[in-house]
Structures are given as structure tokens and as C-alpha cells.
């Protein structure tokens, strides 16, 4: 990484004490955790979180804590049809204690298929024919922007497992609150948002693997949000890569 640290990410997970939700007016408000509108939460990433898995990773972005294990490539189930490319099986689950109200996390049923779609374009599936790679993600604590954190963490776990990929997949979301675009929103901000955009991309190939937009957007706003996301994704990609390098050099010693 270069000497001048990027403003968006700092690998120091410091969370201030909880403050009450301000009312989001258009003019002047401070984000509940005191960040700037274009400032991401501190990212803490570690590989090798679970022993039994071929590869695993733990990610902590503010209060959002996620653990992802990757198993395989292993033989596909007998019932599966023959396939000359590998299969990817993704599952995202929430612990019952991940949300303020118990068991609320199960609302996010489509996350598994979203994770699959975000990753499949990045993995070189030809490299493990007839086999399946399982990606199991568990959200330990839901603190907003859960899916982007899951996606980034899953790609780190895949890299840790030695699955061949074109590039790491970094993911960032922005929320539209009134006139403002707020990057890497926390739960509170997400519940007030007028719209949201999530991008998962491969930073060094400059390719978007998955993109979802909700709410009403004008075209210039979409441009602005995409630029913001892609910039943050490339910075997150650097951090992910340095985390992998660190783990690799540590294991060599």
C-alpha cells in the first residue's frame, strides 16, 4: 500500500459509544457514528478464522461482523448432473442474536442467491470440473451493509482456500438519504434510506459482477453513486490484497 493512506478505509475497528438516531433532514446532520458522508467504516479482515474449512475469513466493518467458510472443491452430490465446470454453492445465514429483535435476520432470504451471483463471475469454474465449492457465510452481528461485507469476506475466504479467481471481489453499498449519498451505511441509516445501490466488482479488472439499485434515482445520481462505489471498492480491494499477502508471509516464516 502507498504511504498516503486512503481516507475511506482504515484498518482500525474503533466504534464509539452508541448515540441516538438523529432525524435526517436535508440540510445538516452528522452520521450516527460520526463519519463523513463519503467515509467508510474501518475494515478489519483476517483469514483462517475456522480450522475445519479449506479456507475461511472473518470481517468486521464497524458493528457488522461476518465469518465465511469455504469447503471444497469436493465431489458433487451423486444426484447432480455431470458438469465439466465446477459448481458454486452459496449460503448466507444469520445468527438468531445478530439483530436487535431475535431471529429478524432470516428476512434476507435472497442473500444466498445474491452472493452466488456476485461471486460466480470471478471464480474460474473451469479449474475444478465435476466438483462443488461450498461457501457458507454467517452474519454474527448485523450492523448495516451486511451483504457487501459478506461478499467481500467470501471472496477473501475463497482466496484463502486457494480457489482460482480472476480477481478478488470487493463490494460496497451507498444509501441515498434526501439529497445526500452516504457510503457504507449502518442499520439505522439503511432504515431511513430513500434508495440504495450495491456494487460488487473486481477492482483490478474494472468489472462489475453484480449491481442492484432500489428507490428512485436520476441518471446523474446513478453516475455519482457508481463512481463513489467503484472508488471505495478499489480501495477495499487493496486492503483485501494486503490482508492476503500478510497471511501468506506469516505462514512462510
Amino acid at each position, binding site marked *: 500500500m502507498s504511504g498516503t493512506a486512503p481516507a475511506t478505509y482504515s484498518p482500525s475497528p474503533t466504534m464509539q459509544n452508541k448515540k441516538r438516531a438523529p432525524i435526517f433532514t436535508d440540510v445538516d446532520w452528522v452520521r450516527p457514528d460520526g463519519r463523513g458522508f463519503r467515509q467508510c467504516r474501518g475494515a478489519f479482515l483476517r483469514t483462517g478464522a475456522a480450522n475445519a474449512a479449506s479456507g475461511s475469513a472473518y470481517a468486521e466493518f464497524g458493528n457488522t461482523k461476518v465469518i465465511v467458510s469455504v469447503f471444497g472443491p469436493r465431489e458433487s452430490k451423486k444426484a447432480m448432473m455431470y458438469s465439466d465446470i465446477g459448481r458454486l454453492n452459496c449460503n448466507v445465514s444469520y445468527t438468531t442474536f445478530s439483530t436487535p429483535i431475535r431471529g429478524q435476520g432470516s428476512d434476507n432470504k435472497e442473500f444466498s442467491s445474491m452472493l452466488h451471483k456476485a461471486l460466480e463471475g470471478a471464480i474460474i469454474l473451469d479449474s475444478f470440473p465435476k466438483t462443488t465449492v461450498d461457501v457458507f457465510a454467517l452474519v454474527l452481528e448485523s450492523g448495516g451493509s451486511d451483504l457487501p461485507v459478506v461478499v467481500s469476506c467470501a471472496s477473501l475466504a475463497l482466496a484463502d482456500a486457494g480457489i482460482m479467481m480472476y480477481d478478488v471481489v470487493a463490494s460496497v453499498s451507498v444509501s441515498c438519504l434526501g439529497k445526500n449519498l452516504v457510503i457504507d451505511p449502518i442499520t439505522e441509516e439503511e432504515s431511513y434510506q*430513500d434508495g440504495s445501490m450495491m456494487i460488487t466488482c473486481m477492482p483490478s479488472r474494472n468489472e462489475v459482477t453484480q*449491481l442492484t439499485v432500489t*428507490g428512485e434515482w*436520476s441518471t446523474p445520481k446513478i453516475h455519482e453513486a457508481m463512481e463513489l462505489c467503484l472508488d471505495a471498492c478499489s480501495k477495499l480491494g487493496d486492503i483485501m490484497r494486503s490482508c492476503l499477502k500478510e497471511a501468506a508471509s506469516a505462514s512462510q516464516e
Partner: protein
Amino acid sequence: MVGLSVGEKHFIQGGIAQDLRSDGRKRLTYRHIQVETGVIPQADGSARVKMGATDVIGSVKAELGKPNPLQPDKGKVSLYVDCSPTAAPMFEGRGGEELSTELSATLQRCLLGGKNGAGAGIDLSSLSIVEGKVCWDLYIDCLVVSSDGNLLDALGAAIKAALSNTGIPKVQVAAAVSSDGQPEVDVSDEEFLQFDTSGVPVIVTLTKVGRHYIVDATSEEESQMSSAVSVSINREGRICGLTKRGGAGLDPSIVLDMISVAKHVSEQLINKLDSEIAAAEACEEESGHG
């Protein structure tokens, strides 16, 4: 799945590259859209939309319910898509489930807007009857009767047509509140309020085959896609939702180009749909009186 020989694949891809698709259409031309409204008498509003061999039914049913405590001044809308095994043998049992949830989630994202209802095609506050006590629950159920590609656009059109066919019964709220705190409501079975559908967006799916994008892909063409972007756009030309399908990555500039193409296509589609819906309504009225 569609089984195609190498020759057929080349024919489809080559045709798209030369702007002449296998059924004679250009890249940005839709198949003929046929709309029929009021097809399900038990529902409050319904429509059947055919795009070529793709055939879907959308129905709307309104029921009285309790509003969400977090949004006491708004009604609720739930959207569900059913892929019937009559459409394709692979939808049998749990086979259609994955596609159903994917379509439902995408339609919800495209039509119902953000979490707090901003940018929604349906004005949720118009469904409120007594704040915090009673509201309308709108159940939008779709059925895929036959599938030949471009399901999402067809379902979006069917929902739009079904909503414009929907009459919400007029409700009288009694002034006196009964003992349990629930206000008494009297639902009229003669007077109906027309649902405002001017804000309901249309969905345009651009399927990328080779270096070009096409609209309204048939299932044969869909089997050759690298990725597809579905954009929902309302009459003002604002984007109400967007999803990407397909594994292949896209360059950000291509995504933005696809959005602007989709915006251009949506203008024609909205006009075409509106006239089809109006014609279908007129046709239904005529047969109803005759």
C-alpha cells in the same frame, strides 16, 4: 434448458450482431404485446399479458389489514410470483422455487422502491384507512403460464395492467370506536376507487449477447447471454430499480450505456403498454355491457 446445436448458436449470435434476429426483429424491438384485463373475476384487478410465447397473469387482491407499527400511515403490498409446472417441466416440485423467489425479489425491488417506500410505483399512503389501525393489504400474485424468455418485463407489464384494472372498494369509517379500540369500517360493494397507476414503472431487460444488447429476448436468445441488466423506469424517466443477472462481469461504462439505452426503450414501451391497457379496458367494458 434449451438445447441448441453449435450451428444454431452461431446463427443466433450472428443474427444479433447483424441487427436481424431469428424472428426478424431488430435488436431493440419488442415482440407483439397483447394485454387482456379482468381475466380473473375473483380478484379485484387482473390482467394477462402475452409477449410472443411468454404468457403471464397478474392479479391484485385487496384485503383489510393492520398497518406496520413502524409505518402507521401506510398500507402494505406483498408480491409473489408462481412458476407453474404447466409452463415448463423443470418448474415441477421445488424446481420453480428458485426462479420464483428471484423474480419476486426483483419485482419487489423494481416496483416497491426503497425500504421507507420512497420511489415506489405504488403510493402506499393511499392504502391507509385509519392511521395505525386499519389499512389495505394489497396482494399481487403473478402466475407464469408459459415461458419463452423475458419473464421479468412481462410480469412487470402484467402487474401494471392489473393495477390499472384494480378498483379498491370505498370504505366508510364509523365515527364511534368500538370497545376494543378497533374502528368499525364498512366496505362498500358498489363504489370503487380507481387505483392510480401513473407512477408504476415499466421494466426493461437488456440482454447482452456478444457485444450487443437486445430487448425482449426469447429463451433461445437468453441461453446465449453473458449477462443481463433489468432496469425499471417510470414515466418521468427516473430509475426506480436495477438488477443484474448472469455471471459475467460488466465494465461500469457499459452498465451506464445500458441504462441510457433502457431509458430510451422505456419511453416507447410505456406508451405502447398504456395504449394496449386502454384498449383492453375498453374491450372489457364493451363485453361487460353487451
